[in-house]
C-alpha cells in the first residue's frame, strides 16, 4: 500500500521558537489526529500539551499560573505529586478492529500517581488526592479506597524523568463501573487555556462526543526534560481525548466523514495561545482507499506504534489553511471498503468461566501475532477481595505447553482491606496464544456491602498487559526533538522496540445475592415462632385447669327456668 507520494514530499517542521533561542517558560500546543479505520469508523485523537518550566518539587511554592491550570498546579504542589495520570473512558477499545490507540485506557476511570519521595504518609495523601480530584473532575473518584488500590511493582513505571523504582510511592486504582459523561468533559475543557472558545477545542461538543462507540479523555502530568542533557526540567500537562465515531450510528452507513459530520462544527482559527496547532490525517492507505479534501501539500512521516505512517498536515496557525471560506471542514471519502488492516502484534482478552455462584475461573488470553519474534509481557491483575483467588491453581500455557513466568509478584487480598495483586512477566512465543487461568471462590458480602444494583453484577477492572514489542521500523529515541504529540507520549529507549499497553475487557461477575427484604422477614418469622412457643409455655405455667360440671341438658334448663318462676327449688 505504499504510495508514491510518500517519497516525494517529506516536510519536517521545526518551530521558529527554537530558532529565536528565547528562554521557553511556557508553551501550549494542540493537535488532532484523524485516522480512518478499516471498518469504516473514524478515530479522532485530540492532544493538548501545556509545558511550563517551573519546579514543583523541592518544596518551593509555585503560585503564579499563566497557561497551566491553577487547580491542577495546586494539587501537584499540595500533594507532592511527581506524576499523575487519570483517564475516563466510556466504551471498550476494540484492538482487533481498530488497531492500537495512541493513548490506551481501560473502560471506566483509571488513576495512577507517583508521589515524590518526600511524602511520608502515602496512603492518607492518596486518599486526600482522590477526593480532591473527584471534585475537580466531577467523578466518583472518592470511591477509591484501600480495597481497590494497588501498588504495582513493575507495570507502571514513571513516564517522565526520574528513575524512581520504589513502588511504595506509586498508587494505582481503577473504577470500571464509572460512567463518563458531560459533567466530566466540562471540567476537563476548563483546564485548557483557550477553553472551548477557540482552537481545536471548539470541536468538543458533548452531544456528538458521547454519541460514539468509544470515548476516552485523560490528563497526564509529568516532569520532562527540556533539552537532551536534561539541565532544566519542565512540567508537562497533556490532555488527551480519543473518540471513535461509528459508521452506522453517526454516518448512517455512508463511508464519508467530515469534521462537521463528526463534531457538528468546523474550524475557523487556532487557539491564539498555541505555539503549534495542527491536524494530522493518517493517509498511509491513501489513495487506494480514500481521498481527503481539501488537499494539503504538507506531509509528514512519523514512526508510531512500530509502524511508519504518513500524515497530511493542516497547520491552523497559517491563514491559508482555512482558504477563502475562512473555515476548515475536512472531508474524507472512501473509494472502496476492501483492504486489510495491519494486525496489531499484541492483543489481550479476558473472560470468566465456570457455572454456579460458588466458584469460577478467570481466563486471560494474550495473543502474540508476530510471525517469528517472541517477546516478554508484564501482566497485571488487580482482583477485588470478594473474589478469592486460589493462587495454587494458576496456570500459564502457550501452544499447549506449560509456560513458566520468569517473575511473579503476588500480594494476597485481605477481606475488606485490600485487593489481590498479581503481576507476572511471561514470554510470549511467536504467533501464539498464551492463556493464564486462575480459579476463585465468590465471597458472601455483608448486606450493606452490596452495591445499589447487586443483580447487575460486580465489576473487576481490566488486566493490564505492558510490553516492549519488537518494531518493524526504527523508532525515534530522541525525546527532546520536536515530534507530533501523538508519537511522543511513551518515552522510547531503544530503536528496535516500542512500548505498548493493552487493556483487556473488565469482568462482570455475579456474586451470590440475597433477597434484600430477607432481614425483615427473618425478624418477623423468628418473632412469630418465639411468640407462639412462648405463648403456649406461658399458658401452661399460669392457667389453672379444673374439671367443669358437664352442661345440663336443654330440657332440664327450661324446666329449671319454669321451676324458678313458680318459686320451687331447681332440679
Amino acid at each position, binding site marked *: 500500500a505504499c504510495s508514491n507520494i510518500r517519497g516525494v514530499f517529506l516536510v519536517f517542521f521545526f518551530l521558529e521558537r527554537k530558532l529565536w533561542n528565547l528562554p521557553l517558560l511556557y508553551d501550549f500546543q494542540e493537535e488532532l489526529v484523524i485516522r480512518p479505520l478499516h471498518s469504516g469508523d473514524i478515530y479522532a485523537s485530540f492532544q493538548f500539551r501545556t509545558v511550563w518550566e517551573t519546579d514543583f518539587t523541592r518544596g518551593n511554592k509555585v*503560585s*503564579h*499560573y*499563566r*497557561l497551566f*491550570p*491553577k*487547580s*491542577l498546579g*495546586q*494539587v501537584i*504542589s*499540595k500533594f507532592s505529586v511527581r506524576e499523575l495520570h487519570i483517564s475516563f473512558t466510556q466504551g471498550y477499545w476494540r484492538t482487533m478492529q481498530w488497531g492500537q490507540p495512541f493513548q490506551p485506557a481501560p473502560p471506566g476511570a483509571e488513576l495512577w500517581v507517583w508521589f515524590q519521595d518526600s511524602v511520608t504518609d502515602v496512603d492518607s495523601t492518596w486518599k486526600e488526592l482522590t477526593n*480532591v480530584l473527584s*471534585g*475537580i473532575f466531577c467523578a466518583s473518584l472518592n470511591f477509591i479506597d484501600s480495597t481497590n488500590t494497588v501498588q504495582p511493582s513493575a507495570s507502571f513505571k514513571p513516564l517522565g524523568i526520574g528513575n524512581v523504582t520504589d513502588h511504595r510511592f506509586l498508587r494505582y486504582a481503577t473504577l470500571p463501573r464509572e460512567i463518563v459523561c458531560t459533567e466530566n468533559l466540562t471540567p476537563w475543557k*476548563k483546564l485548557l*487555556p*483557550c*477553553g472551548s*472558545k*477557540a482552537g481545536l477545542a471548539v470541536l468538543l461538543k458533548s452531544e456528538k462526543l458521547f454519541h460514539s462507540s468509544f470515548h476516552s479523555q485523560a490528563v497526564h502530568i509529568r516532569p520532562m526534560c527540556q533539552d537532551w542533557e536534561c539541565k532544566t526540567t519542565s512540567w508537562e500537562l497533556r490532555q488527551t481525548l480519543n473518540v471513535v465515531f461509528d459508521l452506522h450510528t453517526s454516518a448512517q452507513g455512508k463511508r464519508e466523514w467530515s469534521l462537521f459530520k463528526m463534531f457538528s462544527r468546523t474550524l475557523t*482559527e487556532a487557539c*491564539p*495561545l498555541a505555539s503549534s496547532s495542527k491536524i494530522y490525517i493518517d493517509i498511509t492507505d491513501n489513495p487506494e482507499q480514500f481521498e481527503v479534501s481539501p488537499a494539503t501539500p504538507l506531509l509528514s512521516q512519523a514512526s508510531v506504534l512500530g509502524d511508519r505512517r504518513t500524515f497530511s498536515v493542516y497547520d491552523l496557525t497559517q491563514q491559508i489553511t482555512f482558504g477563502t471560506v475562512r473555515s476548515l471542514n475536512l472531508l474524507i471519502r472512501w473509494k472502496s471498503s476492501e483492504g486489510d488492516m495491519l494486525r496489531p502484534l499484541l492483543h489481550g482478552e479476558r473472560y470468566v468461566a465456570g457455572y454456579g455462584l460458588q466458584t469460577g475461573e478467570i481466563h486471560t488470553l494474550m495473543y502474540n501475532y508476530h510471525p517469528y519474534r517472541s517477546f516478554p509481557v508484564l501482566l497485571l491483575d488487580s482482583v477485588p477481595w470478594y473474589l478469592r483467588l486460589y493462587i495454587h491453581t494458576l496456570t500459564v500455557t502457550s501452544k499447549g505447553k506449560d509456560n513458566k513466568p520468569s517473575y511473579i509478584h503476588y500480594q494476597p487480598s485481605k477481606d475488606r482491606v485490600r485487593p489481590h495483586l498479581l503481576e507476572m512477566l511471561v514470554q510470549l512465543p511467536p504467533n501464539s496464544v498464551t492463556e493464564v487461568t486462575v480459579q476463585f471462590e465468590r465471597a458472601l458480602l455483608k448486606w450493606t456491602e452490596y452495591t445499589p444494583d447487586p443483580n447487575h453484577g460486580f465489576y473487576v477492572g481490566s488486566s493490564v498487559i505492558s510490553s516492549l514489542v519488537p518494531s518493524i521500523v526504527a523508532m525515534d529515541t530522541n525525546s527532546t526533538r520536536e515530534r507530533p504529540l501523538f508519537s511522543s507520549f511513551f518515552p522510547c529507549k531503544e530503536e528496535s522496540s516500542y512500548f505498548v499497553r493493552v487493556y483487556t475487557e473488565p469482568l462482570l461477575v455475579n456474586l451470590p445475592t440475597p433477597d434484600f427484604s430477607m432481614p*425483615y422477614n427473618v*425478624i*418477623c418469622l423468628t*418473632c*412469630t415462632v*418465639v*411468640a*407462639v412457643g*412462648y*405463648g403456649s409455655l*406461658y*399458658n401452661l*405455667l*399460669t*392457667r*389453672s*385447669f*379444673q374439671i367443669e360440671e358437664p352442661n345440663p341438658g336443654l330440657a332440664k334448663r327450661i324446666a329449671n327456668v319454669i321451676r324458678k318462676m313458680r318459686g320451687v327449688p331447681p332440679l
Partner: protein
Amino acid sequence: MLFKTVNLRRRGQLAALSIAAVVILIGVPLWWRTTETYRAWLPVSQIQELANLQLQLSADVEVVFARGTVTPEQQKKVPLTLTQDDEHVVDEDTALRYRYETRYRTATIMEEDALNQPTAAEADLSLHTLSESPCGSLVVYVIPESSSLLPEDVDVYVGQRRTALLRIGAQTRVGRTLEQLLSHLEPRVKQVLQVMSFSHTDITAALSDRVRLSPGNKESIADSMRAFKSSPGYEITFSLLNPDPKSHRLHWDIEGAVQTYIQPLLRKLAPLANFSIDSQTLYYAMLGVNPRFDSSRSAYTLNSDSLAHVINPVEARLGSNAASSNPVLNFLLYVPDAHHSPLHINDHKKQEVPSNAFHSPRWGGIMVYNVNDFYGPEAAFPVDINIDMAKVMGVFLAQLRLLLGVQSSAPPPRFLVAPCSSAGIADWELDRLMWSRSVENIATATTTITSLAQLLDQIGNIVINDNIAQQVSSAVTSLQLAVAELESGNLRFALQYSKEAILASERAFFDPSLLHLLYFPDDQKFAIYIPLFLPMCVPILLSLLKIVSDARQRRREKHAKAD
C-alpha cells in the same frame, strides 16, 4: 376440691408474677443497654455558662504629660492609676464590659527629647523606638497648647504605631487641680480610644453571629457586611482576565507586585490569619453583561446596577481552591477586548468611577484596565502590553483592606491620622482588627458549641464519639482561656485561643460521624419490635390485670363478710 383449685390458681398467679418480674428486671434493662447509642460525656454545664457570655475587654492606656502641661502641684500627685468600667447589655445572654486601666505619668527626659522633634511623624517614630508598647495598649502624650508639633487646626495626632499626641487646652480652661485637669482630659482621651482601640459599634458588629442586631442605619450594616468573616486562613487569588488573546498579549509582573505591595501588609496581618497568595491568567473570560456604548464619551460603560451580574459567569471560570477550604478573596483585573474598549464603570450618579474598579462584599474586587491607549488604530495584532502594576495594586490593596475589615472610617473633627506606612496598616489599626476578630471568634465559637450541644441534647439517637467529646472540651477550654485573656488585656493570646476555639468547634460540629444515626425514625423501630413485643407482652399484661381484678374482688368479698 375447692382447696386444690385455689392452690392451682395461686400457683398460676405466682408464675405470671415471676415472669413479669423477669421481663421487667432483666429483659427491659438488657434491651435498653443493647440498643443504647454511645454518647460520650460533654461538658454541658460549662457550655451553658458560655451560652451566657459576659465579655470583658481590658485595655491599658498610658497618659503621659509632657513638660508644660501640668503645674508642679498637679505633678506631685502623679503617677496615679484610674480604672474605668463601661458596661453594656447587648441582649439577655450577652453583656459587654469595657475596662480602661489608665495610668497617668509625666514624660521621661528621653520622651521629652522625642517630643521636641520638628514634626509629629518624626516624634511618633522616635517615641516608638524608645519603648514599644504591647499589643492592645495605647500611649497618649499630652502636649502643651503651644507645641509646634501639630498644625493649628489639629488637636489630636494619631500616629502609625500605638501612640497619639493630644494637645491640651489653655491652662485657664483646664483648671487648677489635678481632678479638674483629669476631668477635662477624660472625654478627649476616650475619643482617642474610640478611634485607636475598640469602639462599641465595632464590637457589637463582631457579635453579629450571636446577637441579632437591631436594624440600625443602612450604612453601618453595609459596613459590617463588607468584610470577610473571621477565618483562620484566607486565600488571595489575583486573576488576569484576557477575553481577547488574539489582540492583546498581556504581561503582568504579579510576582514582583505581590512582593512589593501585598506581602508587607500580609506580614503585618500574620497574627490574624494565614494568607496564601496565587495568581492565574484566564483567557476568553467574559463579563456577564454587555457594556452599553456611550456615544457622547465614545466609550463603553457599565452601570452600577448591572455590576451585580458581572461576577457569576466569571466565577465559573475562576475555579475553586483545590488545596484548602479557606475563604477565597478574588481580585480580578479585566482587560476589555479591543472592540469594547475603553470600558468605564459608572456610579449611581452616572459619573465615571475614577479607579474604574468596584468590590463585591465578602467576595473580592474587580478592576477594569483599559489598554486601548497603548496602541494606535493601525497596530499589528496581537499587541504586547505591559500592565502598570503600581496602579493596579493600589486599587487592589485598598479593596483588600476593606475586605479584611481594616476600617478607615472618617476620624472625628480636629483629628489628624498619619498616612499609611509602607506596610499598608498602622499598628493601632491592627489592634482594632484583633479586638474585633477575637470577639467575633469567641461569638462564633460559642454559638457553634451551644448549638451543637443543643442539637445533641434534642436528638438522642446521635452517637457522640470520644473524638467529638474531646474536640468539644478543647473548644470549651480554649474559649474560657480566650475570655480570660481578653479580660486581662492580653490581646495576642486572646486571639490565638479564640482561633483555636473556632477550629475545634467547627471540627466537632462538622464531624461526619455525627450524621450516622441521625435518621433512625421511631416508626421503623416499632416495625421491628412489634412482632416480638406484642405477642409476648399481651399475655403478661392480661394475667397481671386478672390478678389485680381478682385481688380487688377478694378484698370486696372480705369487706362484705366483715359487714
